């Protein structure tokens, strides 16, 4: 999943992110947003860009103090569960190229 690391650091990529229903409402956006992110494109850098562009989402995806993924959210892309891959792992090539979005999904729990 590291093809993105072959991109130059100065390269900007348009990355697609699919947000869950409640975060769309909070940000006032549709099902998917697009962000310009410089390589290497990791989950951490992508979330930095999300929180920079949509400050109302700060604290809703990552915990403030630890900056870790909130426990009941999951990250998926290209039919892979990236939730536990670590924040600094580069995203799949199809996400970097814009063919696939990173999916932020609420874990199925509760009622």
């Amino acid at each position, binding site marked *: 999943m590291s093809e993105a690391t072959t991109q130059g650091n100065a390269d900007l990529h348009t990355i697609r992110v699919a947000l869950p229903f409640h975060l769309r409402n909070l940000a006032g956006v549709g099902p998917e947003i697009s962000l310009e992110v410089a390589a290497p494109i990791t989950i951490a850098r992508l979330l930095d860009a999300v929180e920079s562009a949509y400050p109302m989402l700060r*604290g809703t995806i990552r915990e*403030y103090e630890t900056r870790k993924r909130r426990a009941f959210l999951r990250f998926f892309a290209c039919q892979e569960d990236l939730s536990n891959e670590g924040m600094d792992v580069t995203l799949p090539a199809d996400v970097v190229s814009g063919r696939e979005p990173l999916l932020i999904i609420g874990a199925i729990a509760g009622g």
Partner: protein
Amino acid sequence: MSGIRVLVGTKKGAFVLSADGKRNNWTVDGPFFAGWEIYHLKGSPVDPNRIYASQTSGWFGQVVQRSDDGGKTWIQPGVTPGEKSDAWPPKPSNRFPYDVSAETGKPLTTHQWYDGTQHPWEFKRVWHFEPSLTDPHTVFAGIEDAALFKSTDGGESWHELSGLRGHGTGPKWQPGAGGMCLHTVILDPSNPERIYIAISAAGAFRTDDGGKTWKPINRGLKSQYIPDPNAETGHCVHHIAMNPTRPNVLFMQKHWDVMRSDDAGDNWTEVSGNLPTDFGFVIDVHAHQPETIYVVPIKSDSEHFPIDGKLRVYRSRSGGNEWEALEKGLPQKDCYVNVLRDAMAVDSLDDCGVYFGTTGGQVYASPDGGDTWTSIVQNLPSVLSVEVQTLK
């Protein structure tokens, strides 16, 4: 003409119920923040159009919302849509960082866990907002895990009044069944330096210096599960109420027992009297009769519903001990709802109105001090909190 606005927080959104001073015909607006748990909404006494709301979710954490137009529209304080910011750490409205700095005295990092071990303090949610009596930009937040925070910029940023956790008993505090929450914040209108708070299951505390230092005010509370009759902390206080004209007199619904204090919490005496059960969550005081108080007795700590399926508010006109059941207009058959600790409020019209919400989604109103009741709405999500604004 005067009007009433009832702010209702539920497990699936917020609702604003409005009526004129007659309180007969109600308009229901909402849900706001649909699908989110709204633990509490409360308006500023200085600027009633300013309302603070606690929006929470097990998935997405805490969000703070503020309205400056009486609940019609809402913003996250300090967040301007479309405005980018790369600052970190940010100072957004939903960040409640515990103060662990050495400069503030005794930074505490752990409290007692259910199994008796020490457990780190972890922010979970805001249970209660208490707007300042004098400044619409100043608001207090009672949070879980128990701590008191203050904002002086309309909820844009928060700092902890860390003297409370620094009191020294913090490592002995432990969560109640609903978590270790600071759920009650009462500001003394006669003394801006005095604040009362209550924590489940630590007890009640008071500051007389604006929040720098705190003392436990639990003398006289007796809890079956605490063997030490003089225990300074550990009591499961469910709610405290005060009539602003007599700020030294407090009424408390404890886990079991209804209590009163006539000396600002220094000493408590039981006033459960002839209540059919003295377990419950809510308690409130009539707006103009400071010896008239209301509770909703709940069968027991194991059965959180009214006795015999009959929903009854109990009123004492003597500050406790002698209670009368109020049932006119309330369901007297097959009613098995609960009324949670922040889900009762009073208005300040000449004929004091009393309001409460249930876990079954009903919000009841009495325009005559409890004599008769009608349901404003019957099928909301489970009600977490009810606050009332009297609009002149």
